[in-house]
């Protein structure tokens, strides 16, 4: 009964979507807005990576919301899991020699790679979110191999989280106060195209986001892991 109803609903959805998709063939040429971004994005924001110029330039406000959503998820997870009584830690397998050695060797490299990804967000594929996710994967490795005492310091991660977000907002507000009066306005010089120090505020914001996302994702894993022990 339930399956029948859902199949009928989904078929109606499919039929509607097919009707709508017939108006938009796959792989057709760009329309007005996208064309403007690829044609003028270089001059407007100074970033070689046009996706970055959309993410932090034209649609920077979405990214502020996105950063807020991640912050929210971190807080929400802590709320949902905070009032639980801690149960006794179950027996946990001691990590093997391979994991321990591999962790010591790989951890700095992962952090370095993550940093590279978020610092070059305006030049190559990547950015703050991707770099932060890479860094968080390093911390997952740490959780697997290091016993609980040496875990992430909550004070430091809270500080990174809040300061990262606040830097983004403050940069936006400086743009509002300086010169052109627009929130998130690019008030730094664009610099030489396709070099590390270019694209004005974009690398600064991406570095802040990188730290923030890295510490937030690690914290989410930390909170979930604490519960499962």
């Amino acid at each position: 009964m339930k399956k029948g109803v859902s199949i009928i609903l989904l078929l109606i959805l499919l039929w509607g979507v097919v009707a709508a998709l017939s108006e938009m063939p796959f792989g057709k040429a760009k329309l007005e807005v996208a064309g403007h971004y690829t044609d003028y994005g270089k001059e407007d924001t100074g970033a070689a990576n046009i996706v970055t110029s959309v993410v932090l330039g034209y649609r920077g406000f979405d990214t502020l919301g996105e950063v807020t959503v991640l912050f929210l998820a971190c807080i929400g997870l802590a709320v949902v899991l905070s009032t639980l009584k801690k149960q006794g830690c179950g027996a946990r397998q001691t990590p093997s020699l391979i994991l321990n050695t591999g962790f010591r060797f790989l951890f700095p490299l992962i952090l370095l790679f993550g940093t590279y990804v978020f610092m070059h967000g305006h030049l190559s594929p990547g950015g703050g979110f991707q770099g932060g996710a890479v860094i968080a994967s390093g911390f997952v490795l740490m959780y697997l191999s290091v016993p609980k005492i040496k875990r992430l310091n909550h004070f430091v991660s809270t500080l990174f989280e809040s300061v990262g977000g606040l830097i983004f907002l403050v940069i936006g507000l400086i743009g509002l106060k300086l010169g052109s009066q627009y929130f998130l306005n690019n008030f730094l010089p664009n610099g030489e195209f396709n070099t590390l120090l270019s694209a004005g505020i974009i690398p600064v914001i991406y570095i802040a986001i990188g730290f923030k996302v890295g510490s937030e994702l690690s914290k989410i894993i930390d909170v979930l892991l604490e519960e499962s022990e």
Partner: protein
Amino acid sequence: MNEIMNLNPVLLIAVPIGLAMLVPILGLMSSKIVKWVPVVGFLFNSVVSLAVLPRVLNQPIIVKIAGFAPPFGINLVAGPVGMFLAALIAVSGFLVAVYSLDYIHEGAAEKYHILFLLLLSGATGVVLTGDIFNLFVFFEILCISSYALVAYLGNRSGIEAAVKYLIQGAIGSSLLLIGIGLLYGQFGTLNMADLAQNITSFSEPSVFVPMILMVTGLGIEAAIFPLNAWLPDAHSSAPSSISAVLSGIAIEVGLYAVIRVVFTICHVTGSFFVFLVAIAVVTVLIGEMSAFGQKNIKRMLAYSSIGQIGLILFAFSLATEFGVSGGLFQMLSHTLGKVLLFLSAGYMIYRTGSMEISSFEGVGKKMPWTALFFTIGTLSIIGLPPFAGFSSKFLIIKAALAKGDLLYILLMGIVLLGTVIEGTYFFRVVQVIYFKESNNKTEPEGPPVSGLISMSVFAILVVLIGLFPNAILKILTTAASELLNNLEYIRSVLG
């Protein structure tokens, strides 16, 4: 004063988000100041939005984020509708924050204040933004913080309700995103005004299908009839201050988004409104009839919210100037009335220790002020003069009669029947509060000062708006013309 009037409306969103991110740092220094942060934030928002509101009545303020002209950048449209709702959110947020000062004393209070700030900044973002994907982002901020706040108390019912809410909400946001993707694929733009300009007819499948997807996705949050299964559980399981915000603001923001899609982006005309009116009438009946059988006060109030949402949708679907301004007026009076009811019920539940209506016997003598505020809220929601609910319901009836169509008059009769049911069950509660002697001899004390201040301001607002409805009627008619006349909207955004 002049400087406040010229402040940028983007601050209404940026300041609460910034304060929310500041709270963890403040919490490291002192846990006492944290609870004042939402109060400060929404006091700022109330002052700014009320100061800017008169200015936008003549000319909407188009805020270009990062200085890119629409449709290339994201823009905020601080028009009459947006600013009116933003002011409503800010003022109720401020008063509920004052109420929370002493009400929230269990659980992770610091995180409660962060989530509360983010919930309302998400709501403000939804009503102010002029970009459909940005609306989705702020909508998700609103939804995710509601999921977390419903589960805030961490008890069995809270977790169960949050799980149901999350499953349905997640399906809703995915449908919304598919709709946005389909619209982008055809028109290559995400700006609402630009979309509205490109859409010539809403009845072609290429526009109709995304519209239905978006209305369904947003309708889950707005609790329109077949999509409202999550609401009574979620609204009754949260702490009372949050139930107040969810019932008074969150679902109305969902409804605003539906209205924005239907009126401004797709510019719907004709028979689709008949469909919406039918759904609205069913929503009213289902909500009021379910509320009638409830013994739990918070579930009763939650079901009554479904009925009220139906009434608001009914008013909007009349699609006349009277109807739309009546709907906006009903939003205002529902927010004030329902928040007042939840807040006063919150302390009655707290002092008697039970959510059962029967346990409120004798509360009228023991907690006279709280009982009085509850009664004022009741009378306003039912729609008796001289309270705010009367003026708004009167406007809606006038709008339905002005349609002149027998069908609408008939449907209006059914809606009025819903109001009669509403009156019956609300009076039953008032009767229990005042006219039943309690066997229980313990002396419940009244609420603390912060709670009394917040509830009394709501009660005063309900009475004042009921006595002088003409004062805000100008705002409402300007807002209605913004919604009905989407050419005006397009022109003011795109120039």
